[in-house]
């Protein structure tokens, strides 16, 4: 066991982890932040996407020990300070960007990373950026639409509802 300390959603946390403890296990099982999902555990689906020092990463493909000293944001840290939904989260609700919701935490974190890098992406850029996030329900159209809307663009002409 070794001790790790990091900042998670603005709060300093620490814990004892084994070498092979994945960051997603530390978040879900030790910190009880179960918003970050595990869909595949093999780096394919992106349900576990979080931000490490402001950059997206798959929490199933990183050890907790590698996050020692890092600044981590999970989906629990995305809402506004008063608890209301962030612009991206609200857009997912407004545009029906989720069905079962399993992929949604990862989609929201990836969308946030995209809009930070590229505040007004084209539809093609959104689709390309979502390559590492798999959704078995929606067919992606409304996810793309939600992200475009969250970037402040007119989405009335995009794809089907």
């Amino acid at each position, binding site marked *: 066991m*070794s001790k790790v300390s990091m900042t998670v959603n603005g709060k300093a946390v620490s814990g004892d982890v*084994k*070498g*092979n403890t*994945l960051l997603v296990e530390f978040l879900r099982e030790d910190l009880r932040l179960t918003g970050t999902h595990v869909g595949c*555990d*093999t*780096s394919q689906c*992106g349900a576990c*996407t979080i931000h*490490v020092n402001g*950059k*997206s*990463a*798959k929490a199933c*493909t*990183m*050890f907790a*020990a*590698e996050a*020692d000293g890092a600044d981590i944001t999970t989906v629990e840290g995305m809402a506004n300070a008063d608890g209301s939904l962030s612009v991206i989260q609200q857009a997912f609700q407004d545009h029906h960007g989720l069905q079962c919701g399993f992929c949604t935490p990862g989609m929201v974190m*990836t969308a946030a*990373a*995209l809009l930070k890098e590229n505040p007004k992406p084209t539809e093609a850029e959104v689709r390309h*950026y979502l*390559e*590492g*996030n798999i959704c078995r329900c929606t067919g992606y159209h409304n996810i793309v639409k939600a992200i475009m809307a969250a970037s402040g663009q007119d989405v009335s002409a995009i794809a089907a509802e």
Partner: protein
Amino acid sequence: MYNFDVVRPTSVDEALSALSQEDAQALGGGQTLIPTLKQRLAMPTTLVSLSGIDSMKGVSVDGGVITVGGATPHAVVAGEVADAFPALAHLAGNIGDPAVRNRGTIGGSLANNDPSACYPSAALATGATIVTNAREIAADDYFQGMFTTALDEGEIITSVKLPVPEKAAYIKFEQPASRFSLVGIFLAKYADGVRVAVTGASNNGVFRWAEAEAALSADFSVAAVEGLSAPSGDDMISDLHGSGDYRAHLVKALTKKAVAQAS
């Protein structure tokens, strides 16, 4: 996963001493190694993470040579070389997906030498120099077959030096599920000749297509490649995604595309 210790040295010297312990293994971004550990295909007692070594991170451009620190993630390379070497930026910016590109490193990719990885083709086509803690290795001597390199046990890639070509292109025919290349061609044109490196195709890992290099060095045109026969598919990877002959066909088709797109 079996259990192991993870150590995070902050200097190359500390990393080397940690790697000298029995069954210690270097951990770059972990985007290949962690899935491998989950499948219990590797059993280190200690993983030596290179992600805390600041001297191994970053990109610099100097006198026509780009130097990339061994622990530099793909996303950083994609951003930093966009103007100086667009073909390399394109390669780095299309490995895996955005989250993978924030973790995976050039040193990790070259040390692993996956036969379908993107970076080996850039290193070989540019005649890059692989700089380790102990020596400098020319790309032509470095790649020694699928998952095999000139690296010794415990040797670390500290940086990679890539001479910037006059013109270059990377054309990746993507295997859509894995996002590795089914075949990838890195073409680099220098004042003294053209180099063409092929990834994804051969059972022996990345290789140079000598006939295309000779033809293109004499006449840098699509027609020069058109006149060649495709390399033999006999020793190429045959799997459910494509036969050896199909990959051989792609080598020629994508090389023509690379010549047309080179900039």
